[in-house]
């Protein structure tokens, strides 16, 4: 077993492998395990520390400190400042997401082929074949009946009442016990995050995992990527440690996320007009419903119910989401005794959310201290979708029997009666009035056959460079309208297969 964790200064690390994979989340782990299964010597280099369920902290404070990238403080800069939530740990965001598994819709491959000259039926078949494998290996199952919790059951009831299709979510979770801890890392070990399966498998197959090791730059000889270098960072004190350099005989695979991959390539000197362009996201927000009976939203699956009925028109996904109590306390508006009065309703409230399949496009640039700088704002069409989504969620709460709705929009009443939810259709379109986040990030290293508009080709190879591949959400050139983990993992496996096919015998 060759897991190399933080090293103090003076104890520098030099490794040489066939492939070095930067990042251990959905894309990195899937690419690495495919390469390792193909007989290659692989090193995964991950900026965060390796924590298993017994190391997960439990509280939101601990999760922000130990698992989130930059304490969850990364913001997209636009008219409003909306947070971008990503992880920085072995397993990447698969450790702190709800592990939602949705197959890549067929229209996405058609769109990519039409607009970007990649994708099409051939890619679709390969991606779906990998998704078959992933579903089997990572024990994808529908949220079990006993783990649904009241909030998810109410949402199903509400969707039926409101007259639209919805479903129990399929997740990379085996035998969920409904602890409601997905966002802080599943301490019960039921969630199949990649730190628990594909990353250890790479080790078992003779590879390396280098953790607490943020990569400073990709190394090149002419236009050929030959490795990566950086400096260890202590998981607790964040003090810089020893230098590391991992040389790759065959290729460097960058899978550091839709924000970090473009930033890393920029500071490594990769030149392309397309680099950092085409950043997209699913911006979303939550609406609380207040019920007569206790909902106890902290019990049951964090996200157990969803609807894709509005994916095409107007371009929305609806889901339940149970955020930790501490976050609810800061999410409700007000302060002082009024806030405490509002929090007293906690056991009776639950939040359901929407994610907008936004058309808006932003950029990612490498900023100071190697931090990605994301510029992104919603255009009017997307804000109309955003507002419509809030109305749909509120209507669903009403159909489920909520006695009040808490929309959380600055300048509107704190709570609405069921007969007032149509006021949301006239809610302001100024994004600064809303508390929202960007989830599901795409782009920055987008795929396409034209190097003038795409950084990578249909196998993730960076145009104009050799032995350099991107294998994460940053290659995705459009907004999927569904949760992306399944697509990211299957695409990364496809790219890794292509690398193995290219390798000399």
């Amino acid at each position, binding site marked *: 077993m060759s897991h190399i964790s933080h090293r103090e200064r003076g104890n520098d690390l030099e490794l040489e492998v066939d492939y070095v994979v930067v990042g251990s989340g959905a894309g990195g782990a899937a690419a690495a395990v495919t390469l390792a299964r193909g007989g290659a010597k692989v090193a995964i280099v991950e900026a965060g*520390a390796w924590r298993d369920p017994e190391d997960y902290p439990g509280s939101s404070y601990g999760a922000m400190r130990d698992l989130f990238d930059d*304490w969850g403080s990364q913001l997209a800069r636009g008219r409003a400042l909306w947070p971008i939530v990503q992880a920085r740990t072995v397993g990447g965001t698969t450790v702190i997401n709800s592990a939602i598994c949705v197959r890549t819709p067929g229209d996405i491959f058609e769109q990519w082929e039409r607009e970007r000259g990649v994708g099409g039926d051939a890619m679709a078949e390969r991606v779906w074949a990998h998704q078959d494998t992933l579903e089997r290996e990572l024990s994808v199952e529908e949220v079990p009946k006993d783990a649904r919790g009241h909030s998810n059951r109410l949402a199903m009831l509400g969707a039926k009442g409101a007259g639209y299709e919805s479903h129990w979510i399929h997740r990379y979770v085996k035998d969920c016990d409904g602890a409601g801890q997905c966002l802080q890392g599943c301490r019960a070990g039921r969630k199949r995050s990649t730190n628990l399966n594909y990353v250890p498998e790479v080790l078992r197959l003779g590879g390396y995992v280098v953790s607490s090791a943020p990569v400073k730059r990709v190394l090149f000889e002419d236009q050929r990527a030959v490795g990566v270098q950086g400096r260890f960072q202590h*998981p*607790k004190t964040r003090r810089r440690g020893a230098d590391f350099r991992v040389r790759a005989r065959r290729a460097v695979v960058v899978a550091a996320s839709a924000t970090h991959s473009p930033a890393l390539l920029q500071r490594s000197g990769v030149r392309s007009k397309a680099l950092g362009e085409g950043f997209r996201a699913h911006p979303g927000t939550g609406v609380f419903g207040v019920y007569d009976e206790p909902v106890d939203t902290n019990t049951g699956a964090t996200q157990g119910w969803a609807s894709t009925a509005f994916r095409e028109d107007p371009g929305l996904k609806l889901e339940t989401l149970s955020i930790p*109590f501490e976050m*609810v306390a800061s999410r409700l508006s007000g302060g002082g005794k009024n*806030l405490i009065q509002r929090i007293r309703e906690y*056991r009776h409230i639950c939040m359901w959310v929407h994610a907008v399949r936004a058309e808006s496009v932003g950029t990612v640039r490498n900023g100071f201290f190697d931090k990605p700088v994301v510029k992104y704002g919603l255009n009017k069409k997307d804000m109309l979708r955003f507002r419509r989504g809030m109305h749909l969620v509120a209507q669903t709460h009403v159909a489920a029997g909520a006695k009040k709705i808490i929309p959380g929009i600055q300048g509107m009443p704190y709570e609405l009666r069921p007969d007032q939810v149509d006021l949301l259709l006239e809610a302001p379109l100024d994004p600064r009035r809303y508390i929202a986040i960007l989830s599901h990030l795409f782009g920055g290293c987008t795929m396409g056959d034209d190097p003038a508009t795409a950084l990578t080709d249909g196998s993730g190879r960076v145009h104009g460079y050799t032995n350099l591949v991107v294998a994460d959400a940053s290659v995705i050139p459009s907004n999927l309208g569904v949760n992306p983990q399944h697509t990211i993992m299957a695409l990364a496996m496809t790219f890794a297969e292509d690398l193995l096919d290219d390798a000399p015998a």
Partner: protein
Amino acid sequence: MSPGLGYEAPVNSFIEHAMTALYPRTAELPGIEDTDLSGFLEKYRSESTFMMWLGLMAGTFVFIATPILTVYLPLPSFLLSARLLDKHANRITSTRFYLVRQAIFLIKLAAGLCWGSHPDVRRAFAMDPYPPDPGTWKTS
């Protein structure tokens, strides 16, 4: 953050003032003053990033300086009566000035992390206390 720069005590007292105003004690629930707030702030200062700590200090400054926007008095918040301070704490969170709201949100968030994870508060909402924080990671 490096410890022992000498500014911590006064800064912490201002932050505690803002957090206590936002999450006060009530007849039904403990307030943030009933938690180990000083210990939390010390931990937060040493464990969080420089930008997070800076944001908390900026939020506190904004909280203290803005009673003019909420209760229409040109006084720092720590000179307000208890009644006006409570009114200020409530109104400032929904002010129409976006950046002010964002700054206050940073205090609310940090304070929420402290208050909301306290065992007595969690018990009041039928939740188990959080397990001990392991603070560990794999080294081999």
